[in-house]
């Protein structure tokens, strides 16, 4: 087992922490809103979201930004709970891409 990819406290080589305020993108604010709405409706709990992030492929986890991890864990939990299917998500994504172009 050893430590998970999320559990990096005390590892050497991390460098200094960037404590500057981050400017959030619109989609990041939306990600937060979706997350809170799903929580308020009792569809998922914080611990489930954390567990989903811990179960991700480690290379993918490291490559993602903070809110990309949020979105990926929301997707994983909604699929796990059979609220959405991967197919439904991909179909919707294809619609957006044809309307707005590739992200």
């Amino acid at each position, binding site marked *: 087992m050893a430590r998970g990819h999320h559990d990096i406290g*005390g590892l050497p080589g991390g460098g200094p922490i960037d404590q500057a305020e981050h400017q959030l993108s619109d989609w990041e604010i939306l990600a937060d809103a979706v997350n809170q709405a799903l929580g308020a409706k009792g569809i998922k709990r914080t611990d*489930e979201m*954390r567990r989903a992030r811990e179960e991700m492929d480690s290379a993918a986890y490291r490559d993602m930004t903070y809110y990309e991890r949020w979105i990926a864990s929301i997707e994983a939990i909604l699929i796990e709970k059979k609220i959405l299917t991967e197919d439904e998500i991909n179909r919707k994504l294809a619609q957006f891409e044809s309307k707005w172009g590739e992200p």
Partner: protein
Amino acid sequence: MTAAVDKFKPGDRVKIKFEDRPGHIRTPWYIRGKTGWVERVYGEFLNPESLAFGHDGLPKKTLYLIAFNQSDVWGESATKQDKVLVDIYEHWLEPVA
């Protein structure tokens, strides 16, 4: 549930279990196996190790604020005057004589 059922009280010396198992674990890796003391008893909370898998989180677990000397966590190069404070659930603690 009251403090009467809590296994530890402020000031008690405790050791964090060194367990390596799958699941959603709130006890950070760097603090496992380290010895500190109870700084505060927060009370009982639903168990996140159970909630993480869509279960009911019962039975509740007592959560403690545990303090460590920096040097006991990071070695002798650490600052002497500072502490490390970590929230740890009771089932991760064992008594130290």
